[in-house]
């Protein structure tokens, strides 16, 4: 695997923010990696573990603990819909369904991942067949006054109405 030089430079810069302990740079490095490669592969875990002189199990422990990190490739554009109370009251379950439909993603049960009560956190992300979009429910995005809210990539959308769904998605091709 070739790590681009500018990514390497950003990784080294991130490590420099933690003069006391390199381990502190774990989350920043995972973010940088995921932003560049889309998800955290086995190779990513092993590379980061070696870089920070950690056992790879410790990095895997982080990747599976923090919901933002993905073990599989998302769609080209990744959608996060807030699931928690205020947004749910404002219609976020319906919003997720509409977004899924508009994005060509096969509907799947509500909540985090399949399997209802006994599933893990494992893989809550569903990807459209053409690989263009992926969607997941996330917990509170801290914009409860303007629900339902969602994020597409890093962009934030508030009080999303039914009409806006296709309009929003059309921006992401």
């Amino acid at each position, binding site marked *: 695997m070739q790590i681009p030089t500018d990514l390497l430079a950003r990784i080294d810069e991130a490590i420099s923010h933690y003069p006391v*302990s390199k381990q502190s740079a774990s989350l920043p490095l995972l973010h940088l990696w995921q932003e560049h490669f889309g998800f955290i592969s086995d190779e990513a875990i092993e590379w980061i573990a070696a870089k920070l002189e950690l056992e790879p199990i410790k990095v895997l422990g982080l990747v599976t603990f923090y919901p933002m990190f993905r073990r599989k490739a998302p769609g080209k554009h990744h959608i996060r819909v807030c*699931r928690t109370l205020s947004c749910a009251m404002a219609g976020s379950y319906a919003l997720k369904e509409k977004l899924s439909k508009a994005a060509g993603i096969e509907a799947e049960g509500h909540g985090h991942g399949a399997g209802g009560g006994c599933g893990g956190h494992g893989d809550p992300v569903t990807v459209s067949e053409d690989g263009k979009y992926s969607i997941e429910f996330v*917990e509170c995005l*801290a914009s*409860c006054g303007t629900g339902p809210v969602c994020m597409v990539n890093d962009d934030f959308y508030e009080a999303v109405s039914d009409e806006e769904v296709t309009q929003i998605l059309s921006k992401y091709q």
Partner: protein
Amino acid sequence: MIFANVDREGYTPDIECYLRHGGYEDLRKATTMEPDAIVNDVKASGLRGRGGAGFPCGVKWGFIRRGGPKPTYLICNADESEPGTFKDRYIIHQDPHQLIEGMVISSFALDVHLAYIYIRGEFPEGARILERAIAEAKEKGFLGKNILGTGFDLEIYVHRGAGAYICGEETGLIESLEGKRAYPRIKPPYFPAVLGLYQCPTIVNNVETLCHVKHIVQMGGAEYAKLGRPNNTGTRILCVSGDVQRPGYFEVEVGSLTMGEVINDLCGGLKPGRKLKAIIPGGSSAKVLRADERYKVKEKAEDGSMVDKEIGIEEIRMDFDTLAAVGSMAGSGGVIVMDDTRDMVWTLNNLNEFYAHESCGQCTPCREGSLWMRKITDRILAGGGTEQDPDTLKSVADNIAGKTICAFGEACSWPTQSFVIKFREEFASRSTKPLPLPTPPEFLADRLSEEPTKALTTGSHH
């Protein structure tokens, strides 16, 4: 005060705009003061932490000894994740320098030379804005080496979380900042002010709290303490969501408004034709208040004596002490309003799913109990509620609260405890199946849900 520049016409988050509006003047003032004098001002201000627990900030700061053998760290808790709360996002996005200035002043007072802003991962834009603001402040000499020629050095770095609510708990946050799974630490011995980040003294303060420090320096602690009510000083930002006409955030003097005033005057009241059913007054972890209940509080009479009074939900004053007196809490300032169209089982299940998802899983009661409560409310919603479920729910919550490493135990059990008690009839009417015979649990949940009417018991069990 804190939100003076939020949504202000023409106000931009860059440093030039901030300086035009008097930015970093309070830092200049602070650097002429003795650090202890700043700490004393914060103590005198009566400022209570705005993160949720309402711990007096000055007391927290008072644990720090300047010039100890270990360095002291400051961490800004910007992991805003308490459902119903949405204030920090606006400060960070629209007025980041207010926070930076508050942090530099606090660091100067506490002899901190390395500080981190732990911002939740879902705020990528906020992280970029803060990084830009830090670079600007450094360039202007408000940050970095020899700040304003005083010889005081400070570096601030932005550290992004990655979607874990538990990182809002200060020792979980510290573990996360150390690059570990955010398992909160046991206290004692790991009080952050003694054994915090890298086992060094550490102060963790909420975004809003650190912003207040700037204003306390500006006004002086005693003057600041005149805002609000005794023991509930200053302003605070209320975030209102749910079934009101105009949800939003409002900066008010603590305790200056009642619940009714917040709902009716600030938020335009309920939607047409609806009746108030319930309010969660301080973020999703706060115990729910029922609209048709009467609450007993103590109020100061004109002669100064305390008298008992019975009030309705709309008369509840929005301050730390009153909300505690009516059995809930001011928490993070997130008010979630529910009208009579809301199903309380559905509402609690939504919260239970949140807490089951966010439990770090370190300690037994919360790890096992949060998911159990969710499974029960899931099953009741699916039509599989049994007669014992409301009691089981309540007792599971009771067995979590007060028995865990961190306050998440209370946070996840308070909703269940309060919803089941306050809306008992709603839970009971959905939990009518006779208790089934002992059967391997692997098969029970489905059978209960699939056979909504047929009793599952046979023989002598009932």
